[in-house]
């Protein structure tokens, strides 16, 4: 068995349950610490498999460029309030290069952009939420050219943000500010996040609708032209 596979299995079946068990027995406020540790542990297998694959230079550079593009794209939309293209670019990366590339791009761009703003208690949550957006988009659309219709992508982006990515980001708030963790209390916080998530989702949906076609065309072209993100022959 590959070392990274073994590591993933150990993490998921031993480390996470152990964290949950011991974490809930901490005397004091365990919600934030335990949940954040679990979130980090969920990301570990992705990172481990990337490391053990010994990625080639082209793959590495492409991921770096996509992650940086996702962060830098906000300058292009500076005039439009709340319009964030970052999740849309991450999703497009997942669609073009597959779920794993999407996850890494999302997680790295969240982490890197926080060096320019500020790291905070939200960093692991943001890494996971953005990574998941790329992973999820890749899972659904990667290798399915026919599905990539603008309206379908738009609806997909909007719903993904509203139902998955946004609530994941809100989870961080739930675990930091709630005094008593019950479903009713958590729903209050999630409910307060809905307007923000709506705007974020609309921005992402619209961007996906109009940006996917030109961007996918370019990514596919560069893949064809230079053989990027394909298996490199030997170690040339």
């Amino acid at each position, binding site marked *: 068995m590959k070392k990274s596979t073994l590591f993933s299995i150990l993490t998921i079946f031993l480390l996470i349950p152990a964290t949950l068990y011991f974490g809930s027995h*901490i005397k004091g406020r365990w919600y934030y610490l335990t949940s954040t540790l679990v979130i980090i542990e969920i990301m570990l297998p992705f990172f481990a498999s990337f*490391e053990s694959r010994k990625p080639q230079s082209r793959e590495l*550079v492409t991921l770096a460029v996509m992650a940086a593009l996702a962060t830098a794209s906000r*300058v292009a*939309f500076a*005039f439009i309030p709340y319009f964030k293209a970052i999740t849309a670019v991450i999703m497009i990366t997942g669609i073009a290069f597959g779920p794993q590339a999407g996850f890494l791009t999302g997680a790295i761009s969240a982490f890197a952009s926080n060096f320019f703003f500020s790291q905070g*208690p939200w960093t692991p949550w943001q890494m996971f939420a953005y990574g998941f957006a790329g992973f999820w988009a890749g899972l659904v659309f990667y290798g399915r050219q026919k599905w990539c219709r603008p309206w379908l992508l738009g609806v997909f982006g909007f719903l993904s943000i509203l139902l998955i990515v946004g609530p994941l980001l809100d989870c961080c708030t739930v675990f*930091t500010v709630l005094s*008593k963790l019950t479903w009713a209390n958590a729903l209050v916080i999630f409910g307060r996040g809905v307007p923000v998530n709506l705007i974020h989702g609309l921005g992402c949906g619209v961007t996906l609708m109009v940006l996917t076609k030109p961007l996918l065309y370019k990514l596919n072209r560069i893949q064809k032209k230079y053989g990027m993100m394909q298996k490199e022959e030997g170690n040339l």
Partner: protein
Amino acid sequence: MSQDSFSRCHPAVNFLYFVTVIGFGVVIQHPAYAIAGFLGASLYYLLLKGRQGLSFIGSMAGMLVLITLLNPLINTSGEHILFRLFGRPYTLEAMAYGAALGVIFALTMIWFGCYSEVLTSDKFTALFGNLIPALSLLLVMVLRLIPSFTRKTKQIIVARSAIGKGADATESRKDQIKSGISIVSALTDWALEGSIVTADSMRARGYGCAKRTNFHIYCFRKSDAFLVGLIALLAALVLALGGTEAGFTPYFYCDYVTLGFPAYCALLLVPSIMYLREAIVWNNLKFET
């Protein structure tokens, strides 16, 4: 950029310290510990940032008040009912709990503010470069590319407005979005073509042929070992001596403060004391000459 004496320590010391204080900070809800943590974090933050830091701490204090007032709306248990709002009790205990949560929230944010100042990206990659070589290389590349792409985006915007295609705040939403799309796709083309050059250059220089070596300027000195020992000892004392438990709703209780509390305070003050000691020594030297 001048650095204070704690920031000049080995990154491992910085990382260990922040993991410890933030870990204790988010878990312990004993009021004395929380307030001490808040003060300790604020002191170091102010020493690092000077007068500019005040506005951040002020906004965190605002959040504290907000959380204090909002918590009783969500959590309704408690013995002392102050008044009823829409038929739901608004209790003193829940308000106290909210205050404690607010303090914990604020101290976490302030510690993270210090973390951002002290543990810069170069230190992070120096610390984890051996453990996760591919990921930290990826991170370094992204950190370099973000400013470069931002500059290029601005160039594209200026170039477009020079040929009359610029979309500023006066244009309609639709035109702004269209213009943004064109900019992003121009940027993508440029970036991807450039990335080929980088990748080929990396391959030509032998990336991936052997284990990556890395250079960094941090060496682990005796004083670093001492600090690691001190942090570990103080953390162990806090854990072992206990007295950190407290509960708020439905009724308030908290442990008697033990000797763990001074240990916790000492832990909180480590970077500030290092900072002040350096300042005093420097001052004395200035007046001697």
